[in-house]
């Protein structure tokens, strides 16, 4: 079915089609519309979800954890400081191996307070043990949310999934979208049948017990192995999803990378802008390409190294700062991934778009201009720079 929906409407609609058992609901811009739209479905009797309106995001995630441990499928939505307030519980959800699904509508973290898009919220949670999948547009936001449960609920994975989209850019912009029939969604998602859950009376269960040091490390190894196993499962689910939707998904998307010498690595809606710039540059004979990271956790390091092996210069574009004084989080991951290559491309990091600062086709073209210069001279120049800020100095 063809429709026109905003990203938030699309994800709320995906939730309606899934008909989850429990929603932990608390509003925060720009994710507020998701629990709002969903509240309509509950009020209209279109779903039979237990809609739990709570007093904070700490509580909404707590509701999801308790519900999922009891054997219910639970969902949640949040942004920015809301995700930050969930922080403690994010780790509890992942370490208790509870496959909750969270729609994260990315927004800059305070302070200074700002409501627009960057990835500082979910990047702060990148080590929490959640699978993180990022969408470029509304269609991907919808599709990724539908794929989240079959990934997270698989017995050898059993990890929560954060389905991320860009605040306002994706969440509030209305786009054409292809929706699946609800029956097809239900068949694809299936029933949630965990082997162990609190309400299973034959099987008394304790969840989240205290773990002393002779055991904690083994449980963390189990969790790390689950995250490794998630990679193959994400691809399996993507293949199954392609059969019912006709839409192809991988760990990342390669755009005009076959013979690319200059490449970008970035995430989310900026990919659309980058594709436009690349098409333009290709007309001028520039061998430009893009790797759009879709799955950030588990990070597709080996696959990314293969995709970038033939390039000469790569710019990683980080839409969150990270304050490592050594580049943003996507840059750190990409560096780590490429280190094993015998011949590595030159690599730079460009932090851009913080707090919703616009990035235009011309900005991306400028980045490729710098990459062309690096490839020609072999001189990388400053490795870690910011883009789009006012400065007294000329910006590289």
């Amino acid at each position, binding site marked *: 079915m063809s429709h026109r929906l905003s990203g938030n409407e699309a994800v709320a609609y995906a939730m309606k089609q899934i008909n989850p058992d429990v929603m932990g609901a608390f509003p925060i811009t720009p994710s507020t519309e998701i629990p709002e739209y969903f509240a309509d479905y509950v009020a209209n009797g279109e779903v039979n979800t237990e809609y739990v309106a709570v007093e904070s995001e700490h509580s909404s995630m707590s509701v999801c954890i308790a519900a999922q441990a009891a054997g219910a499928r639970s969902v949640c939505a949040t942004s920015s400081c809301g995700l930050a307030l969930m922080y403690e519980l994010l780790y509890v959800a992942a*370490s*208790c*191996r*509870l496959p909750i699904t969270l729609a994260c509508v990315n927004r800059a973290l305070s302070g200074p307070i700002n409501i627009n898009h960057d990835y500082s919220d979910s990047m702060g949670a990148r080590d929490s043990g959640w699978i993180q999948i990022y969408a470029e547009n509304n269609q991907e936001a919808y599709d990724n949310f539908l794929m989240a449960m079959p990934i997270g609920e698989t017995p050898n994975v*059993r990890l929560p999934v954060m389905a991320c989209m860009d605040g306002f850019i994706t969440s509030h912009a209305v786009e054409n979208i292809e929706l699946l029939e609800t029956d097809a969604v239900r068949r694809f998602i299936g029933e949630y049948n965990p082997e*162990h859950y609190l309400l299973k009376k034959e*099987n*008394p*269960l*304790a*969840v*989240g*017990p205290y*773990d002393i040091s*002779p*055991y904690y*490390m*083994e*449980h963390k*190894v*189990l*969790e790390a192995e*689950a995250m490794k196993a998630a990679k193959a499962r994400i691809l399996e689910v993507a293949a199954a999803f392609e059969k019912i939707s006709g839409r192809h998904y991988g760990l990342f998307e390669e755009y005009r990378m076959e013979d690319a010498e200059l490449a970008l690595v970035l995430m989310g809606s900026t990919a659309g802008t980058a594709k436009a710039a690349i098409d333009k540059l290709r007309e001028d004979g520039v061998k430009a390409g893009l790797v759009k990271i879709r799955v950030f956790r588990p990070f597709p390091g080996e696959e990314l190294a293969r995709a970038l092996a033939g390039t000469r210069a790569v710019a990683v574009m980080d839409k969150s700062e990270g304050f490592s004084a050594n580049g943003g989080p996507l840059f750190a991951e990409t560096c780590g991934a490429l280190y094993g290559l015998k011949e590595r491309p030159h690599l730079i990091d460009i932090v851009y778009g913080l707090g919703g600062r616009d990035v235009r086709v011309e900005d991306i073209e400028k980045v490729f201009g710098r990459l062309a210069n690096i490839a020609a001279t072999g001189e990388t120049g400053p490795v870690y720079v910011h883009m789009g800020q006012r400065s007294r100095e000329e910006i590289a």
Partner: protein
Amino acid sequence: MIHAKDINERTPWQDLTPGGEIYEPGTARLFNTGTWRTDTPIFHEEACKHCMLCVPFCPDSAIPVKDGKRLDFDYMHCKGCGVCKEVCPFPAITMVTGGAAK
């Protein structure tokens, strides 16, 4: 499905449960937490009237009862808090310094 009694500090990570889930109740009984004790209650049976006041006050269920009579302390689980000694109306419980029951 692995039982708590079959898990110990030599169990490899592959055999542990996801998230440390425990698939049965009452497993705290298996753990020797008496080693945490720095003071130890001593039971003087001859002075005990078996009034049972100490039993519900014990925060660790470390006072076993059989046929209406309290038995000696379960030192595997007693933390030596001394609450039993405080509530005992008779000179049936005294405390000694140190973790060992003398």
